[in-house]
């Protein structure tokens, strides 16, 4: 086992920002809007760093795919304790069409190139909400996967993963190399302290292009339109159950 952990981090619009749809309906306004690391990615980085601190893993590599600004996100991961970063340069039209399929191809290629023992990503990104990248990456690599992880521990040459599923908690044991996706209760991410941010300046971020990894980025999806959800209509007060039944019948619901 190489003891290398590959962590994917995504730069998304900050969770506290009020989203506005672009007038041409092709997407949301990102210009001048505050961006930060996807919260689930933070949890993933934290878990990876903890594994290294417990000496169960040797090196944590933070990866991000996107334009120049992604380097900020990688730097945050470095400030949280990652050892080095890889920036996969994707910009312009390619970036607009970048989805889970493309990212998972890149992650798979990098995992093979870096000989990673473990790939940890957030369960989903708060902009796309796709919840697909981790699963697709595992499938492309033909590796076992422990998704929606709320607890991860090393068990011999494998991992014991506690998963949060609809019915409750499920424990699975998977062999390594494996892919894990982080859920909310996996851990509480640390603050990147200012001294660590200063130290992170000295850590390396390598730049690669998707072509160097043999990945082609064409998308099978085309975004037709992005719209606001319909405005919530105000409700109507009724006086009696009879009125309620009448109204429901009239609207065709009953």
């Amino acid at each position, binding site marked *: 086992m190489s003891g290398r952990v590959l962590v994917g981090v995504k730069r998304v619009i900050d969770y506290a920002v009020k989203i506005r749809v672009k007038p041409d309906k092709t997407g949301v306004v990102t210009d001048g809007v505050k961006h*930060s690391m996807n919260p689930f990615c933070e949890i993933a980085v934290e878990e990876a760093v903890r594994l290294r601190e417990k000496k169960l893993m040797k090196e944590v590599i933070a990866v991000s795919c996107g334009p120049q600004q992604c380097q*900020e996100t990688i730097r945050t991961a470095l*400030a949280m304790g990652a050892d080095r970063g890889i920036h996969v340069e994707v910009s312009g039209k390619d970036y607009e069409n970048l989805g889970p399929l493309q990212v998972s191809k890149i992650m798979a290629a990098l995992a093979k190139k870096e000989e990673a023992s473990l790939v940890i990503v957030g369960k989903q990104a708060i902009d796309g909400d796709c919840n697909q990248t981790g699963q697709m990456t595992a499938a492309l690599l033909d590796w076992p996967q422990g998704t929606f992880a709320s607890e991860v521990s090393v068990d011999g040459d494998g991992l014991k993963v506690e998963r949060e599923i609809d019915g409750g908690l499920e424990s699975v044991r998977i062999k390594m190399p494996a892919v894990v996706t982080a859920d909310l209760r996996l851990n509480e991410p640390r*603050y*990147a*302290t*200012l001294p*660590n941010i*200063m130290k992170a*300046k000295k850590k390396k971020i390598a730049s690669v292009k998707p072509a160097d990894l043999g990945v082609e980025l064409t998308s099978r999806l085309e975004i037709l339109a992005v719209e606001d959800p319909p405005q919530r209509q105000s409700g109507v007060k009724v006086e009696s159950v009879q009125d309620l039944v009448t109204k429901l019948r009239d609207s065709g619901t009953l």
Partner: protein
Amino acid sequence: MSLNGLFRVSRAVKSGGKLLNKTCGVGSTDSQSPRFFRTHPRSLVYAKDLFLGNIAKKEVFPYPEISNEELDELNQLVAPVEKFFSEDVDSKKIDEEAKIPPETMSGLKELGLFGMQVPEEYGGLGLSNTMYARLVEIISLDAAITVTLAAHQAIGLKGILIAGNEEQKARYLPKLSSGEHVAAFCLTEPASGSDAASIQARGTPSKDGKHFLLNGSKIWISNGGIADVFTVFARTEVVDKDGNTKDNISAFIVERAFGGITSGKPEDKMGIRGSNTCEVHFENTPVPIENVIGEVGGGFKVAMNILNSGRFSMGSVSAGMIKKLIELTAEYAGTRKQFNKSLAEFGMIQEKFALMAQKAYVMESMAYLTAGMMDRPGVPDCSVEAAMVKIFSSEGAWVCVSEALQVLGGLGYIKDYPYERYLRDCRILPIFEGTNEILRVYVALTGMQYAGKILTGKIMDMKKGNLGVVLEMLGKRLRDTVNKKVDFGLMGKDGVVHPSLMENSKKLEENVYSFGTTVESLLYRFGKTIVDEQLVLKRVADIVINLYTMTAVLSRASRSISIGLRNHDHEVLIANTFCAEAYFQNNYLMAQLEKNSPENNDDSIKKIAMQVLEKRAYVCSHPLDRTF
């Protein structure tokens, strides 16, 4: 730079070098090299020329910038601090319990906020003045924490940083920057506040000559109850080179562990209640002679340098607070309706927001202009500019918080809302770090002293019969009476101000020129006795502050337009509005300063005051009293 200035700089650099070995110099814009500290004065930067009726264009135009790299780094540093303050700091609880919880303190220490300006080699972040100002903008969200951190690093350990030797730095700075040890600054005594030079605490040499025994009492010491390392100022007997014994002040690094140190109980304050303020008593505390900062007897200068170096940050602290308040208050004004209109539609409410926006803009502009000047290589002494930032920001903050509270009406008065806490916290700003009264005197006198020296020089030259100087002065007078136009080159060819600010740039030039003549006539009229004419000095200071604020605002707005910053039109609007107002204020003040000015009520004011103070009470008879 004038020849005088050049000589002074080179002398200061040489002597500064002696004081500080290799760490003399000032912050550089290269983020790879460490940032240093400026030490010895005295090459005054911009304000001094105003007193001569000149605008030192090069010092303030263009508006200082930091490199892209530094800006990136800064934004990285800002993010976790903002997150910490919005999620993990409960300002209401800190205010109610008059205590900063230990978890919050550890959080601050872990974040690295205890050694922001300490060089990296001693475990700090090595931030420049500009970056420091940016971070305290966020920290200002909680005033008690701001004061605790400032007392620790802006004054508490600053002495070691700017005047300490290598050995002292290596011994104390690492633990201070990690926050393992907390620092405090002990100057003020019950009988010596503004009159700092009159302190009575004493350091007497021990019999073996290896220690000083410290005796005395200090009051109003921030962090006094929690500090482990104190920078203490006390009198020591010094024999100077002529063999005379003098009683000069020395600066000491005192560890609580030395013994003999007791702290009183924490003061119950109006605001910044989370910050620990108490009395500190020293009883025969043995202080090793290696712990003297700088030279024995050179403590007063150290104290002044420490205080001067931190003042500018009050600008960004106040600006940060007001920007936050604008957000909160505007939210309310936009939703609250009365008379079927939202509050935001009423003129008097709108006026308050315009005021807050202007003040915040000015404070930011002044603070970062001053910080930028201080970060330049060389040994620029921006103490006058920093004092002006402090005066304007402390008074501006008080007014803005009060107006914001007023917008909320009754709700603003309720403790459930933060406004009353902000108001209580702000009230200390005009008082500590040098009262605004003292700082006004400092600004006015320093400038007038400088102007006086130059002018005396010229007058001496004239008396000696130096024809050139005589002709120059006559020519100047003639030009004034014949040609009313003044031009310092802010506009036009080689202009540094953007055309959309042309009107106000001309007004600034006019003001500066008139100010120069006003200063001349004041010096002529009062001579040395001007030291006692406080009401005159107050006006002089107010005018200079206005001139500096106008300069800062014009410089910043010009840059914003030139590089096309977002919302630069709004900036131009604010800049123009502010300058127009300041221009009129200045004209009125200068009119009051003219000889036998009818707008000047100073004599009457003095009379009223004397009569009241004599009786130590209100003197008038009651309106209902009768005599028959």
